C-alpha cells in the first residue's frame, strides 16, 4: 500500500511537471512562506501568515476605530457595524455568562473579531486563511482554556474544583462523574480548536478540489456551480464558526464565574 501511494504521488508529480491531466493541490493554499523573499520560515519571518493576520488587524482598526471616529449620535454605516458588534457581544456575554463577566468583553471581542475577520479575509481569492491552521486555533483555544482556569481559581479558589463534583448526583456516582467532568474539561481546548480549524480547512480544501475539476471542460459548469454554492456555504461557515467559538468561550467563562452545578 505504501509503495502504491508513493507511486501515485510520483505519478502526480510527473503529471504536474508535464502539465497534463488532473492536478490536485488542495493544500498548497495553506503553505506558510516568506512574504517578500524565498527561503526558510523563521520565528520572526514576515510570512503570508503574518501579512493576513496584520491585515485583519487593519480591517478591525478601520471598522472599530475609524468607523466610530465621528462619535455620531446618529451613526453612519461603519459606526453602525461597530455598534452592532458591540451590542451583539455585550448581549451574548451578559446572556450566557452573566453580567459579572462583562469585564471580559474586550477579551472575547478580540477573539470574535479576529476569527470572523480572518475567516472572511480567507475567503478572498488567492488569500491565505490564518484560522485554517491548527497552530492558530490551538493557540486561541489554549488562551481561552488558560484564562478560564486562572479566572476560576482566582475568583473561587479551590471551590472552582466543585465544577467537577456534581453535588446533585447520588453520592456513589459522583467520583465517576468527576472523572468524566475532568476529562471533558481537558478535552475542551481540543474540540474548541479542531472544530474551528477543521471547518475552515475542509471548506477551503473542498473548494480547491472543485476548482481542479473545473479544468475539465466537460464537467466545468458543474464544478463552477459547485464552487459558487460552496463559497456561499463557506461565508456562512466563516461567520457561524466564529460565533460558535465565541459563544463556547462564554459558556466556559460561565463555568469559571459560577462553578457550582
Amino acid at each position, binding site marked *: 500500500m505504501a509503495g502504491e501511494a508513493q507511486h501515485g504521488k510520483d505519478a502526480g508529480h510527473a503529471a504536474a511537471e508535464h502539465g497534463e491531466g488532473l492536478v490536485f493541490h488542495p493544500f498548497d493554499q495553506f503553505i506558510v512562506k516568506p512574504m517578500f523573499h524565498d527561503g526558510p520560515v523563521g520565528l520572526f519571518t514576515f510570512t503570508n501568515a503574518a501579512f493576513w493576520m*496584520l491585515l485583519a488587524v487593519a480591517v478591525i482598526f478601520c471598522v*472599530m476605530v475609524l468607523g466610530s471616529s465621528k462619535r455620531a449620535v446618529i451613526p453612519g454605516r461603519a459606526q453602525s457595524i461597530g*455598534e452592532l458588534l458591540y451590542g451583539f457581544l455585550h448581549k451574548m456575554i451578559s446572556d450566557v455568562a452573566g453580567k459579572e463577566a462583562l469585564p471580559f468583553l474586550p477579551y472575547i471581542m478580540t477573539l470574535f473579531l479576529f476569527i470572523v475577520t480572518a475567516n472572511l479575509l480567507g475567503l478572498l481569492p488567492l488569500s491565505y486563511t490564518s484560522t485554517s491552521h491548527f497552530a492558530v486555533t490551538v493557540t486561541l483555544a489554549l488562551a481561552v482554556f488558560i484564562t478560564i482556569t486562572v479566572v476560576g481559581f482566582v475568583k473561587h479558589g479551590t471551590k472552582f474544583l466543585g465544577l467537577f463534583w456534581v453535588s446533585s448526583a447520588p453520592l456513589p456516582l459522583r467520583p465517576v462523574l468527576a472523572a468524566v467532568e475532568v476529562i471533558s474539561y481537558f478535552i475542551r481546548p481540543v474540540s474548541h480548536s479542531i472544530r474551528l480549524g477543521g471547518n475552515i480547512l475542509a471548506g477551503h480544501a473542498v473548494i480547491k478540489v472543485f476548482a481542479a475539476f473545473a479544468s475539465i471542460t466537460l464537467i466545468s459548469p458543474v464544478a463552477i456551480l459547485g464552487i459558487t454554492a460552496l463559497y456561499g456555504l463557506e461565508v456562512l461557515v466563516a461567520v457561524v464558526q466564529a460565533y460558535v467559538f465565541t459563544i463556547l468561550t462564554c459558556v466556559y467563562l460561565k463555568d469559571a464565574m459560577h462553578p457550582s452545578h
Partner: protein
Amino acid sequence: MADTHNESLLACVDVSGSADGMPQLCADWFGNQVFWLILTLVAIFFILSRIALPRIASVLAERQGTITNDISAADELKRRAADAEAAYEKALADARTEAQAIAQKTRDEIATELAAATAKADEDIAAKTAESEKAISEIRASALENVEVVAKDTASAIVTALGGTVDDAAIAAAVSNQVKG
C-alpha cells in the same frame, strides 16, 4: 538529485513547490504563526480596549441620554399641551355657563315684562268687560222696562178691545208678575 537539494532547502514543501503532507501539521511553521498570532491578538485587544470599546460605549450612553432627554422633553410638551387643552375646555365651559346665565337672565326679564304686560292687558280687559257689562245691564234694564210698558199698553188695549174696564193697577201687577215669570 536536484530534488533532494530543493527538499532540504524548504520544510514541508516538495520539489514542485506544493505542500508535502498537511501544511497544518508542519511543525517548522508553528512558531512563526503563533508569534504573529500573539502580536495580532495583543494589537486587536489594545485597539478594542483602549480606543474602540470606550468610544462606542460612550456614544451608546450619550445616545441613550439623548433619547431619555428627548422623551422627557416630549413628555413635558405633552403635559403642557394637556394643560392648554384643559384651560381651553375650562374657558369653553365658563363661556357656556355665562351664555346660559345671560340667556336665563334675558328669559327671566322677558318673562317678567311679559307677565307685567299680560297683567296690564288683563286689567284693561277686565275694566273694559266691566264697562261693557254695565252698559249691557243698563240696556237690559231699559229693555225690560220698555217690555213692561209695552206689555201694559198692549194688555190695556186688549182689555179695552174685549170691552172690559181698564184697571191700571191690576194690569200693572199682572204684567209685572208675568214679566218676572
